[in-house]
């Protein structure tokens, strides 16, 4: 009877495609919108992800997320270094500084100052130059997106694309001269501002004069150390906040979840997509069953059991669900792939596949259940009505 169920389903191409399209749309919107949401949210902590080496981040106890800089005194670095279990601790400056462009306009940049000796916390991927080039006089490394776009030199033709910043070019950071010694690839940040790397001491020169300029202390634990226990020890000894990398990511992520309208905006669009997709697919599938009611009646009159009819309808639902889900997820993946070089945030983890799979299954099961009830209640005598 499975063969008959499949033929019944695919016999009317228009309706079959209608159901598939409804489910494709539902699964597309259930994956594409959350993928953008997850991509956007992952950008909130992309800076932490890029700084791969340290195990623990130490900062002011009032810091709420990675961009919420509340500077410390440099002496805090030595206090942290003195705690048992710490293999090394390095300073990091992170702040927003203005860069004056060749056309006279200003662009705010995220300036990251790395420990002068070790350069720990540098960019994850160097495209041009070496990180050691930061030791050269006035050396800075600029991220590729910033170099191409926001920090680019003005186009010689009016309205043309800016000329990308290159190694050897000079720039002005808060009235200080800086020379580009490298181009790096960094993960886009939430604010999408250009990222400029330099040494800690040079960053302090670029930054406006303040008593406290140390943003973070990056800590590497000695081998075999329990990171949670070491973080607790740092907190207890210094009175500062200390988070493992994952804890700091979560802190940042949760701040954005609680304090921005992003989750609710995306939540609404995902919910609407789910409702619209479910309505289209469910209604089309239900209509399909209603229109085939006489055929089910014929099968019932000929001796087909309700159980067999139920299996037939479930098979039809599973089939359209699987195809619709596959197409929807495929389109989302294609969308993500085609946008990989754009500014669009996109992250498509396996959990999202599970989520959308569960969503589409729910739609199919619901539509199938409503249809099954109709078929089970069907009087086979319907077949004698003209």
């Amino acid at each position, binding site marked *: *009877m499975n*063969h*008959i169920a499949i*033929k*019944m389903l*695919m*016999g*009317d191409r228009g309706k079959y495609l209608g159901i598939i399209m409804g489910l494709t749309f539902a699964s597309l919107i259930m994956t594409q919108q959350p993928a953008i949401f997850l991509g956007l949210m992952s950008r909130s902590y992309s800076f932490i992800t890029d700084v791969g080496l340290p195990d623990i981040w130490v900062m002011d106890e009032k810091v709420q997320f990675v961009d919420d800089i509340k500077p410390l005194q440099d002496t805090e670095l030595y206090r942290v270094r003195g705690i048992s279990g710490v293999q090394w601790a390095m300073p990091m400056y992170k702040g927003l500084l203005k860069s004056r462009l060749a056309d006279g306009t200003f662009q705010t940049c995220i300036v990251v100052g790395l420990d002068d000796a070790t350069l720990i916390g540098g960019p994850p991927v160097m495209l041009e130059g070496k990180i050691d080039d930061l030791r050269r006089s006035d050396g800075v490394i600029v991220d590729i997106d910033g170099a191409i776009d926001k920090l680019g030199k003005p186009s010689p033709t009016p309205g043309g694309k800016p000329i990308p910043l290159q190694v050897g070019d000079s720039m002005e950071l808060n009235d200080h001269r800086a020379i580009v010694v490298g181009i790096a690839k960094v993960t886009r940040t939430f604010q999408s501002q250009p990222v400029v790397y330099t040494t800690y001491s040079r960053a302090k020169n670029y930054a406006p004069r303040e008593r406290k300029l140390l943003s973070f202390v990056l800590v590497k634990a000695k081998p075999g150390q329990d990171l949670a226990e070491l973080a607790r020890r740092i907190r207890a000894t210094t009175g500062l906040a200390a988070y493992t990398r994952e804890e700091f990511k979560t802190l940042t992520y949760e701040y954005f979840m609680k304090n921005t309208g992003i989750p609710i905006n995306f939540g609404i669009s995902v919910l609407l997509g789910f409702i619209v997709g479910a309505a289209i697919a469910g209604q089309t599938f239900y209509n399909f069953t209603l229109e085939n009611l*006489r*055929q089910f009646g*014929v*099968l*019932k*009159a*000929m*001796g*087909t*059991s309700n159980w067999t009819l139920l299996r037939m309808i479930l098979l039809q639902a599973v089939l359209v669900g699987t195809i619709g889900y596959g197409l929807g997820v495929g389109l989302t993946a294609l969308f993500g792939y085609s946008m990989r070089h754009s500014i669009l945030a996109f992250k498509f983890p396996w959990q999202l596949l599970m989520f959308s799979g569960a969503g589409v299954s729910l739609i199919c099961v619901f539509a199938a259940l409503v249809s099954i009830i109709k078929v089970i209640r069907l*009087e*086979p*005598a319907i*077949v*004698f*009505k*003209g």
Partner: protein
Amino acid sequence: MDSSSLAVRCENVVKTYDTGGQKVTALNGVNLDIAMGELMMLVGPSGCGKTTLISVIAGILDQDHGHCEVFGEDLLNMSGQSKLDFRAHNIGFVFQAFNLLPSLSAAENVSIPLIINGMKRSDAELKAVAVLEQVGLGARVAALPSELSGGQQQRVAIARALVHSPRLIVCDEPTSSLDHETGHNVMSLLKEVALHKDRALVIVTHDARIFEFADRIAEMDDGHIVKVKNAK
């Protein structure tokens, strides 16, 4: 009539429908015997209860009162599954609107009763092709219902009703969607290939032009059998 030679015995069958709070009596004490090897026609005006009676005889509708035995089995007292099995093995259906599954080929449509009875699809389709050849459609086994004329579709429906060798075939207005000549041909075919001593045919019809094919004609009115007469 000897009860062992009876295909159907209905005694005082009553069936009432509840239509929006109003009771409508479709069968009001119907008594009817149909013998094996007999072609019985049920005739009468619209709404007289003909279709309800064949639904009860075919076991797809339960009467409220009375007995209806088919091959000695009281369908009312059968469990749901037994009744399904009984229908699947013993009864063939021919409908006014053919009721072929539009997305299945002629052979696939004909094979359905065999598949319901548990036969493998490939074997069922082989047998279906043989029966389609018997009804003169050997060349159209792969055609979809939409590719067949009304007469050809009814031939497919007849093949479907015959393929599993049922002992009773119930037909509801089998010629009313067909022109006179095609209807005549369909009835000739039905009588020729479907009727034999181990099988009975019950045909509901308005079509007086096919009365000549009946062995007996039962006239119904207002939920009763008012007259049963020999057609010849």
